[in-house]
């Protein structure tokens, strides 16, 4: 009797468990898992118009000779290596300052610094494009303050165009990351800091020996999130460059051409080659996976 009821309990668990997840599983199967696998298959084919033929790994070999791809790879890495550390350090500094209860108006500062994170990527990018125009707001201010003599060609010079993207992204995402750190800092008991204070540790020492190690899991989380975000960078370069989607290059001398923009171009701007575009997209997958593993290892996390 008991055995029978246990059996039917398991059956009910099974049936309802699958019922509740079934809608999501079907949708994810069609719109997530299938595309991921199909994309892997596509990466071994070549499509020109409607003709599709298998080419094995030729696409992957072709990558190394493709100047556009190499430019996109280089640009994406420049943004990743420079922007992510600057932003995360700023976020960390702001969070540890705002976690100090003796700071006045903490709530106001926190809200204000988080505010950029509510803007849409396209809206803020277009806003920055206007602010950084040649005789625009930023140049006017810098010239009035006598920091520069001549206007900086923000969006017309490859170097400055990249700087603009980095400034813009830092504006948009610093407060967002700061909130993660703040919630992490709240979990560190005050007693640890008090004990350190008694032992005569300076604020800076406390930061390096208490705050940083305790926040490690969240730092790893935010840096992986930022890695994924940066490698998918699309809205900003597309909307900062002259002519946007229809422009002849992405940024001056393709200085803003990123992997995602290149994939988009391969599919919808040039003569469509879905197979080769899928190959480039799998390079992104590979890089994200590798960088995530490296970041986990660097942090010494086991999970």
């Amino acid at each position, binding site marked *: 009797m008991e055995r029978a009821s246990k059996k039917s309990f398991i059956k009910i668990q099974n049936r309802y468990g699958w019922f509740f997840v079934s809608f999501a599983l079907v949708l994810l199967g069609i*719109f997530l898992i299938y*595309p991921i696998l199909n994309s892997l298959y596509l990466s071994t084919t070549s499509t020109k118009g409607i003709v599709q033929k298998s080419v094995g790994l030729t696409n992957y070999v072709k990558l190394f000779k493709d100047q556009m791809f190499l430019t996109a790879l280089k640009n994406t890495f420049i943004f990743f290596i420079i922007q992510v550390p600057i932003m995360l350090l700023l976020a960390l500094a702001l969070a540890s300052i705002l976690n100090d209860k003796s700071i006045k108006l903490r709530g106001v500062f926190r809200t204000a610094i988080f505010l950029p994170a509510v803007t849409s990527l396209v809206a803020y990018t277009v806003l920055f494009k206007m*602010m950084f125009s040649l005789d625009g707001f930023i140049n006017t201010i810098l010239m009035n303050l006598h920091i520069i003599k001549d206007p900086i060609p923000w969006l017309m010079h490859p170097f400055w165009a990249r700087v603009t993207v980095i400034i813009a992204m830092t504006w948009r995402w610093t407060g967002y990351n700061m909130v993660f750190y703040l919630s992490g800092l709240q979990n560190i008991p005050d007693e640890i800091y008090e004990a350190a204070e008694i032992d005569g540790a300076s604020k800076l020492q406390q930061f390096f020996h208490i705050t940083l190690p305790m926040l490690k899991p969240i730092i790893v989380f935010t840096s992986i999130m930022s890695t994924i975000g940066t490698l998918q960078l699309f809205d900003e370069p597309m*909307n900062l460059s002259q002519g946007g*989607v229809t422009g002849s290059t992405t940024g001056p001398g393709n200085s803003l051409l990123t992997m995602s923009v290149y994939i988009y171009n391969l599919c919808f701007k040039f003569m469509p080659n879905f197979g080769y575009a899928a190959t480039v997209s799998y390079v992104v997958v590979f890089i994200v996976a590798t960088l995530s593993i490296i970041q986990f290892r660097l942090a010494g996390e086991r999970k």
Partner: protein
Amino acid sequence: MKTKKIITRAFVYAFLIAAFVVSVFPFYWMLAGMTNNAIDVIKGKMTFGGQMINNLKVLITSHNLTGVLANSFKVSIATVIGTLLVSSMAAYGFEVYESKGRNRSYAIILLSMMVPFAALMIPLFRLIVRFGLLDNHLALIVTSLASVFLIFFFRQSFKSFPREIIQAARVDGAGEIRIFFSIVVPSMKSTYAAAAIYAFMTSWNAYLWPLIILQTDKQKTITLLISSMSSAYFPEYGVIMAAIVVATLPIIILFFALQSYFVQGMTGSVKQ
């Protein structure tokens, strides 16, 4: 010692005030810009002008603002309702029932969150073409109904839901589906609010996927409108500013009305 402390304090506040100004100023400039004409905006004028009504008029008459906003609201609201239902049900199924194979399928789903959208884009686009949903809002809604992030988010919250309540309801003879909809959902309002904000923002601000799917002006969403206006041959900067304000306003209102849920919705997954 004491003077040193005062100096560091001064530096800390200077840093905070600088961060404050840099963060908030673009919002002020966006509001000022919407009241100026194109030349004033691009020359960086910082004060308010008298062009607001005119800019809004142009936005409504020659850029079909009402239609565009209706599209954005339609897609975002449908997405929010759909994804809250589908994702929270899935999370509940994963968390509460010990069905066979649930851990494995959950792990696969979570892993797929690491795959960037660029890698799905092409097969997804071809799928939509095959379904005949190109240039159709349904293509935006149906692909975002099951959100891996939200399933994860909901599951984290369901972990803290007391199992005794579910057991008690079972003893009272309530069906499994009724337990979920009339006991669990109503008692998790703040989780749903946070998830709704996340889903709304993601949908409202989406750019790449709508750019691929929506091809006619009639179907355009607000992000697509801003993007195409700014890449025009002669951009009407004042009007663009007005469009940016219109696009940002709903989220800002949501933010100030539901601030605590907001932060939870965007960061909730890492909190224990």
